[in-house]
């Protein structure tokens, strides 16, 4: 790794954006329902705080399925995505289903969100699109920056534990998205090993409260400045 890591990260994220702008409409139709792990996290947080979730951010919100989940649980959510086309899909979803949310076009590694803003955050299925590793850890630091003390976030990334992978260590790959006409669009993925996922969290400013593997993904419930994470 040389000194041009940052430049590399920029061009890669730009290509992720171009990819999702291109596949947005089809992608949105296949991403209808919230993930059960995310539902569980939001429900647990709502009950932990007596129903008042406050300001929420959904990083890599795509068409807003989890932004909607946050709104449905009384949060005031902001959906953030690198793809403008996906954010438009989120806007349409909010209009159709009558939930309130704000939408912001932004980069997960350089969040346009003020510090100590979000009392709850969701950062699922997005971290694995960033490279190199310094950009992934940097995005976790960004999440720590915007999270309020006592706030909680759920982070997920694709894992080698998924059935489709045989690898025993983390690796970079390209996974193709097939459009309805049969055309394929490549997407960069870093497939995490559970050990490396824990290691990246440990290197970031986040405190991992709970880490688990579910449905082939690594999940972490995280916080900032939790003196005793075990007490949850």
């Amino acid at each position: 790794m040389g000194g041009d890591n940052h430049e590399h990260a920029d061009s890669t994220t730009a290509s992720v954006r171009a990819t999702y702008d291109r596949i947005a409409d089809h992608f949105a139709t296949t991403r209808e329902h919230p993930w059960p792990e995310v539902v569980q996290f939001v429900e647990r947080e709502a009950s932990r705080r007596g129903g008042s979730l406050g300001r929420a951010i959904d990083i890599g919100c795509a068409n807003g399925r989890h932004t909607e989940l946050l709104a449905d649980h009384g949060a005031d959510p902001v959906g953030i995505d690198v793809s403008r086309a996906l954010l438009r899909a989120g806007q349409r979803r909010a209009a159709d289903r009558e939930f309130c949310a704000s939408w912001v076009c932004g980069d997960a590694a350089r969040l346009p969100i003020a510090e100590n803003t979000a009392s709850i955050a969701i950062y699922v299925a997005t971290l694995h699109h960033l490279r190199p590793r310094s950009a992934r850890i940097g995005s976790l630091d960004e999440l720590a920056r915007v999270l309020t003390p006592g706030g909680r976030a759920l982070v997920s990334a694709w894992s080698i534990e998924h059935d489709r992978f045989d690898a025993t260590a983390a690796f970079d790959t390209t996974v193709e998205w097939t459009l309805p006409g049969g055309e394929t669009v490549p997407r960069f993925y870093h497939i995490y090993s559970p050990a490396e996922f824990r290691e990246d969290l440990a290197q970031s400013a986040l405190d991992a409260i709970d880490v688990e593997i579910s449905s082939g993904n690594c999940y972490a419930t995280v916080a900032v400045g939790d003196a005793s994470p075990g007490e949850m």
Partner: protein
Amino acid sequence: MKESLMDVICCPIDKSDLELTVDERDDEEIIAGTLTCTECGETYPIEDGIPNLLPPDMRDEATA
């Protein structure tokens, strides 16, 4: 975007406050306008109600 979002968003580069200029408004919703960083002076467009707060090096390649 609603004006209350100004409390949440910041410049993606230096994290400073932004200043809002509204070009088009529909009731409470700001449809078009510009956000200017009070520190570095970088400007970010609001289009179709969505602020584009991508860092300039990513925004310039936008084709959508």
